[in-house]
């Protein structure tokens, strides 16, 4: 098949882009089915005590931003957690599936917002990942689907998962 490479110069209006790129990949339901296909889920949110919070921070070396953690118990064993991480330029919502014994089964990015000098913690953006209310399917803000060039690192997610594993040990396991 013939290949193609064509550079398209954009009109000025398109170049002065948004202060943020945002992508939404999965709703809570979709993320659950992506990590644990065919299973059912029981909401089991956890509110951390200050003692637990400190213990998690100590064990993981990562700061705990929220006392409240969105957790679901998976039929047949395992846990499904929705979590978020904030970097200097990014706000990422992701889902982590844990096996019954606490190891990571799978991580799926549910969505991210990337801003430079803008407001990272957009409440409306966050709201769409809270609970199971969001019905929307995959949608990208603006028409920009693919971007090439310096991109987000996954360092904050690595830290987030470290924190979740400590959370499991301290707040879920027993």
């Amino acid at each position, binding site marked *: 098949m013939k290949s193609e490479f064509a550079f398209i110069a954009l009109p000025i209006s398109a170049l002065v882009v948004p202060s943020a790129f945002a992508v939404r990949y999965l709703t809570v339901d979709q993320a659950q089915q992506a990590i644990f296909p065919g299973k059912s889920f029981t909401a089991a949110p956890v509110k951390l005590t200050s003692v637990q919070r400190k213990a998690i921070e100590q064990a993981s070396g990562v700061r705990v931003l929220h006392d409240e953690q969105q957790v679901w118990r998976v039929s047949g064993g395992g846990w499904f957690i929705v979590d978020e991480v904030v970097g200097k330029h990014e706000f990422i919502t992701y889902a982590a599936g844990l096996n019954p014994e606490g190891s990571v089964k799978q991580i799926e990015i549910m969505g991210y917002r990337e801003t430079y000098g803008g407001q990272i913690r957009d409440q409306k953006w966050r709201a769409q990942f809270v609970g199971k209310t969001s019905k929307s399917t995959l949608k990208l803000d603006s028409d920009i689907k*693919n*971007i090439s*060039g310096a991109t987000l690192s*996954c360092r904050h997610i690595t830290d987030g998962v470290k924190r979740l594993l400590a959370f499991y040990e301290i707040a879920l396991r027993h």
Partner: protein
Amino acid sequence: MRSHSGIEIRRCRPLLGTLVEIACQGSPHDIDCAFTAMEKVQRLMSFHDPTSDVARMNRHASRRPVKVHPWTWRVLKSAQEFSRKSDGVFDITMARQLVKWDYLPRSGTRLCSAGSWRDIVLDDEHNVQFRHRLIVDLGGIAKGFAVDRAVAALKNNSVTAGIVNAGGDLRTFGSASEVVYVRHPVEPTRTAGAVRLRERAMATSGVYFERRKYRGKYVGPILDGRTGQSACELISVTVAAAECMIADALTKLVFTLREKVAGLLAQYRADALLLERNGTPSWMFHSPCDTRDQTRFD
């Protein structure tokens, strides 16, 4: 909902130090297979993971042959070819400089000053041996290879169209073309232009957010293997080629050699686009192969 390019499913996972997005006209299982292939590349070629082929080579290959996975061996073979064809500008043994500048972790590696890509010996049994105390890093090429493996996995599952994007190293396949926006070299939430791609891989490198000061001078992670000096101009380089590994490696060469790399780009049937810090293209190279008639620059 079926979009014009037929892409029906889009997933994103943290991998290879970045966010990897796979979109295709396929099933969640197809996407799982593609991510699994990329995870395998990460496991084999990570500089950080002590059990990877790269870490094992860096620990032992200066004393005895180290047997590596066929994939690692293939990437090493390609790296050697890029080194030979660029007269050593591309050199995976520059890892020692990246360690010195803290782009790579020091742990478990001993700094060494001698040796180059010429001291890496590969035999046909997939054994690797270093003639000097060397360390190697496949960071400039393995991400592209991982994208190629993901595309191969999708095709292997009879997926007919898709795109894999590993933080700017991407590859598209299928009959429809995809529009990929290229970030502004200095202001990453602005786009400097867009490229239409079909059946092609593309990689973009820039150093603005990666450059740092070392002893009062700016350094960056893209090095000239002949001199050990880094290229840290505020530009971005985009290369399109048939395979993402090729595009990935060639961006580093365009960074250092600029227009002088035209011959090599032609050999690899690659296209290149160089953006200056104000976001305007200063150089475009069109591969003299069949992409030419479709390459348009308004």
